């Protein structure tokens, strides 16, 4: 499996799409802060060209870390099924379980690299172009990121499974969206009538990370951090097990 991971890293490092993706993510984060800075320069009354508002912007969308995972997995493995390269690995005697684990490791490293670069560009551009305001610092966003990571990893595992299970990557993305968006949404709505579903819905990342309906910032409370860890851990186990069951006898 180690050789598979090494070969995948070789592919990732030598693929143009890797750098394009990295560039797009970095450019988007740069764009947010540049946009705020430009608006501030044009309109002196514009109050949002501060580092604090920039950090607040990220704090309001913790689900961005979860949603980025399938996009990055899609970039890495969209063509794997079509190219037939997976068949080479299987024909060489690498089991499907090891392929799944290897792809998860490679995706995780890639996602962390993209996250590191994107946040570095975001913070650097915020502090370089915007008016400094100590109300909310980058440390708050880093704490948010750390708490969102287990759920993001669960999303990543599910994305790797979905891309491999479905012969069409697009269908895989739809499955991912159904599990990560539709199921929590349905549980929340049913939960208005049935308490059991409300209890379940409360532990689903897309619900407890929804900052628009949040009364407290989840990573600032012990209960919130626990939810992040438990929900993320459970997701990793459940999606990993589902992937193992679905892929170990999959015919390619």
């Amino acid at each position, binding site marked *: 499996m180690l050789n598979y991971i090494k070969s995948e890293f070789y*592919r990732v490092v*030598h693929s143009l*799409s890797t750098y394009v993706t990295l560039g797009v993510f970095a450019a988007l984060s740069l764009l947010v802060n540049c946009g705020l800075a430009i608006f501030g320069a044009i309109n002196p009354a514009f109050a949002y060209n501060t580092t604090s508002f920039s950090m607040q912007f990220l704090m309001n969308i913790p689900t961005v870390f979860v949603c980025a995972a399938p996009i990055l997995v899609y970039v890495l493995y969209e063509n794997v099924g079509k190219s037939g390269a997976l068949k080479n690995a299987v*024909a060489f005697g690498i089991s499907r379980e090891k392929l799944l684990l290897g792809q998860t490791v490679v995706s995780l490293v890639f996602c962390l690299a993209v996250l590191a670069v994107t946040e570095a560009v975001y913070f650097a551009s915020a502090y370089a172009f915007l008016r400094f305001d100590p109300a909310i610092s980058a440390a708050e966003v880093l704490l948010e990121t750390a708490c969102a990571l287990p759920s993001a990893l669960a999303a990543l595992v599910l994305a790797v499974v979905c891309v491999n299970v479905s012969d069409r990557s697009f269908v895989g993305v739809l499955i991912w969206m159904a599990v990560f968006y539709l199921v929590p949404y349905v549980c929340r709505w049913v939960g208005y009538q049935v308490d059991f579903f409300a209890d379940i819905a409360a532990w689903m990342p897309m619900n407890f990370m929804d900052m628009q309906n949040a009364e407290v910032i989840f990573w600032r409370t012990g209960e919130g951090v626990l939810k992040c860890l438990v929900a993320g851990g459970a997701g990793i186990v459940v999606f990993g097990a589902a992937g193992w069951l679905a892929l170990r006898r999959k*015919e*390619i």
Partner: protein
Amino acid sequence: MTDCVIQTRGVSKTYGRLKALDGVSVNVRRGEIYGLIGDNGAGKTTLLKALVGHIWPDEGDIGILSCEGRQLCAARRQVGAMIEKVGAFPNLSVEKNIEYCRILKGIPDRKKTAEVIELVGLAEKAGARCSQLSMGMKQRLGLAIALIGEPQILILDEPINGLDPSGIHEFRELLHRLNTQKNITILLSSHILSELQQTATTFGFLAGGRLIEEISIQKLTEKCADYIEIALSDVEKYAALLDKNFGDENYIVTPEKKVRIYSPRRKPYEYSRLAAENGVLVGGLESHSRSLEDYYMHIKEGGKNA
């Protein structure tokens, strides 16, 4: 059967209502070039996919290099395969695709990539993206990927599809070199029978998911050779006459009490005359000539003991 490097026993595979493989038992011996012959849908690719682990048979056992069951994964590391389309990343160059496979297979020597590119004749296209290659070049890349691990066994599905005539010639020569110089056992499928006839040393005929016959090139040559079959009133006497008068003829007496002369050296009327001059009545004389294609069509229609 200890010299068998690939052995299947009663392998069956069903897709919905279609029985793609029905109790197939093949024996590929070390050093052979085994040609799997069959029409489209005969089960060639299904069998090869089962061998390399892309699919699981519903019934039956598969053995590779004396390994079965869970050990097959380890045995498959000695197998290079090209099944259906070439397993390459379209946006990577030829060299990088092969380098990827070198790393995947854990081969430490970086020179192997250049060697295998040279071996399959892709040196000039080493920097070209896989998506820019012609069909024939992709086939070569597939072969290079299969060869990079220095495998003991090569499994190739329709490997000459898309190759031009000189490419086919080079490919055939390459397979012979790999077989004789590196002692690689090769299992390949094709429906281009004339090509397989020049390449393979053993043939397996598949039709409707069943293995109809497994036959060596020697026996096949014998069965496909031109022959004259003569029905006679006294077969033993005529056999003695053949030995005495036409001692250079290769003949057999068939179970139907006919004399069958392979690759006859004389005109048909000379055999009739020999019988007539010695008081043996000729009931009938038929000339036969068959290609591998004729042979395949014949056994496919049920004439196994042709």
